[in-house]
C-alpha cells in the first residue's frame, strides 16, 4: 500500500518533468529560460562520466553536513546552558533573540572579510544560519520537562547526570529533531549561496559558472541535483528520527 503510493508519487513527479519536456520540444517555453529537462540530464550524465561532478558534489555535501552538525552540537549545548538557569537565560536570550531573525546571507560579506574565501567561512555561515531552529527547539525542549517528572526525579533522589541523561535530553529530543530537520534544508541552501558568493568548488559554484555563461540547462542540472540531494538528506534524517522517537504515537503519517 505504502509502496504503491510512493510509486504513484514518483510517477506524478516524472509526469510533470515529461510535460515540461514536451513543452520544450514543441517550443512552447523559451529555450533560454526553460531548456528541455533532457538536456539538463545529459549534462548530469556528462559530468558524472567525466568525473567533474564528484569533487563539487562532495564539497557541497561536506560543507553542508559540517555546518549542520556544528549547528546541532552548538545548538544543543547552548540550549542546555540557556535552559539550565534563569541567569544564563537572562544573559544570552536577548542576544539570541536579536541575532535569530538576522538574514544569514547578510552575514556572508562580513564573513568573507573576516575569514576569507575559505571552507571555514562557508561552514561558519552555515552554522550561523542553521543553528536557530535547533537552538530554539533545544531550549524549549529542555525547559518543557514535565514538572511531574522532575518531582519523580526528586522522589527517587536521582543525580544531576542521571537526570540530564534520563529525563532532560530525551524530553528535548523530539524538538531537537524537529529543529534539525528544518536546519538541514537551511544548511543546504546557505551552503549553495555561500559557495556562489565565495566560489568554493561545489554545486553552488557550478551553478554560478553556468549562470555566468547563461547555460540554463546546466543551471537546471544543478537544481535537479540539489533537489535530489535534499530529498535524500531528509529521507535519511527521517529514518533516524523514526528510530529514536519510536516511543511517540505515529503522527497520521501512514
Amino acid at each position, binding site marked *: 500500500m505504502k509502496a504503491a503510493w510512493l510509486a504513484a508519487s514518483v510517477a506524478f513527479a516524472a509526469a510533470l518533468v515529461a510535460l515540461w519536456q514536451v513543452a520544450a520540444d514543441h517550443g512552447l517555453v523559451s529555450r533560454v529560460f526553460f531548456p528541455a529537462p533532457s538536456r539538463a540530464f545529459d549534462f548530469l550524465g556528462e559530468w558524472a562520466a567525466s568525473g567533474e561532478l564528484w569533487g563539487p558534489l562532495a564539497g557541497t555535501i561536506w560543507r553542508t553536513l559540517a555546518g549542520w552538525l556544528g549547528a546541532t552540537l552548538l545548538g544543543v549545548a547552548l540550549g542546555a546552558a540557556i535552559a539550565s538557569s534563569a541567569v544564563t537565560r537572562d544573559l544570552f536570550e536577548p542576544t539570541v533573540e536579536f541575532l535569530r531573525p538576522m538574514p544569514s546571507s547578510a552575514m556572508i560579506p562580513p564573513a568573507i572579510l573576516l575569514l576569507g574565501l575559505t571552507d571555514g567561512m562557508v561552514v561558519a555561515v552555515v552554522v550561523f544560519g542553521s543553528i536557530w531552529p535547533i537552538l530554539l527547539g533545544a531550549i524549549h525542549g529542555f525547559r518543557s520537562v*514535565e514538572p*511531574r517528572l522532575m518531582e519523580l526525579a526528586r522522589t527517587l*533522589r536521582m543525580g544531576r547526570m542521571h537526570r540530564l541523561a534520563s529525563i532532560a535530553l*530525551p*524530553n528535548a529530543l523530539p524538538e531537537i529533531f524537529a529543529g534539525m530537520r528544518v536546519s538541514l534544508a537551511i544548511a543546504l541552501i546557505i551552503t549553495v549561496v555561500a559557495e556562489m558568493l565565495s566560489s568554493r568548488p561545489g554545486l553552488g559554484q557550478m551553478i554560478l559558472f553556468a549562470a555566468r555563461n547563461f547555460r540554463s540547462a546546466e543551471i537546471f542540472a544543478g537544481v535537479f541535483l540539489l533537489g535530489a540531494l535534499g530529498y535524500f538528506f531528509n529521507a535519511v534524517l527521517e529514518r533516524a528520527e523514526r528510530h529514536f522517537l*519510536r*516511543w*511517540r*504515537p505515529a503522527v497520521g503519517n501512514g
Partner: protein
Amino acid sequence: MAQPIFAFRDVSVRFGATPILDKVGFDVAPEEFLCLVGPSGCGKTTLLRVAAGLIRPQEGRAEFEGRAVAEPTPELAIVFQDYSRALLPWRTVAGNVELALEARGAPRAGRAAEVKRLLGIIGLADHAQKFPLQLSGGMQQRVQIARALAQRPRILLMDEPFGSLDAMTRQALQDEIARLCKAERQTVVFVTHDLEEAIYLGDRVVALEANPGRVVEIVEIALPRPRDQLTTREHPRFLEYRHRLFGHLAKKEAE
C-alpha cells in the same frame, strides 16, 4: 492504635494569600490502609504532596517515623493523579519500572526478573515492551503503581489512582490493590473523591471539607475483609458510613 508510622501535625498551606489547608492533623498507623476523601479542590493532592515532601507547609509538618519530612525520599512512593505526565514517554513499560530500581541502585543482574514480577502483579506482563503512549489510561496508571512498588517504599501514597478507569477495570484493580497491600503489609494513604471507593478500600476514612481544607470526620471502617464488590457494598454498615460521610461532603458543596 499502634505507634503511628506517619503523621500530619497541624499542616497549613497557602498558595499566595488563599488558604488551602488549615491545620490538618491526623496519624497513619503501620500497615493501615487510610483513605482520604473530599470534594474536588479541597486540597487532597496538596496534602499528599506535603506528605511526599514535595511541598513545605507554611505551618505544621508531616512526620515520618517521628522525623519531619523536609525533602522527598524514596521511602515514600507517590502515585501521581495525572498519570499520563508521570511516566517517561520515551521508556518502555519495563524501562519505566526499572527507573525506580536504577535509582535505588538495585544490582543490574536482578532487575529484569524484578520488573517482570511487578508487571505480573499489575497484569501488564504482556505489554512490557510497549511505550506509555501506546497504552490506555488505566494501563498507564498501573505502570505508575508498579514503579511505586519497585521503590519498595515504607509508605505508598496514591492520588486517585483509579479515577480514569472504567467501572469494571476499576473494581478489579480495587480488589487487587487491597489484596496486595494486605499481603505485603504495606502502609497506604489513598486519595479519592469517590466516597464508596474510600469506604470499600479503607481501614479508616478521613473526610476533608473545602475552603479551606479541614478534617471534618474520621470514620473507622468496620467491614470484614476480604471485601466483595457485590456483598460488601450492600452491607448495611456500608450504607450507614456512606450516608454519614455524604452528609458532610454534600453540605459543604452546597454552600
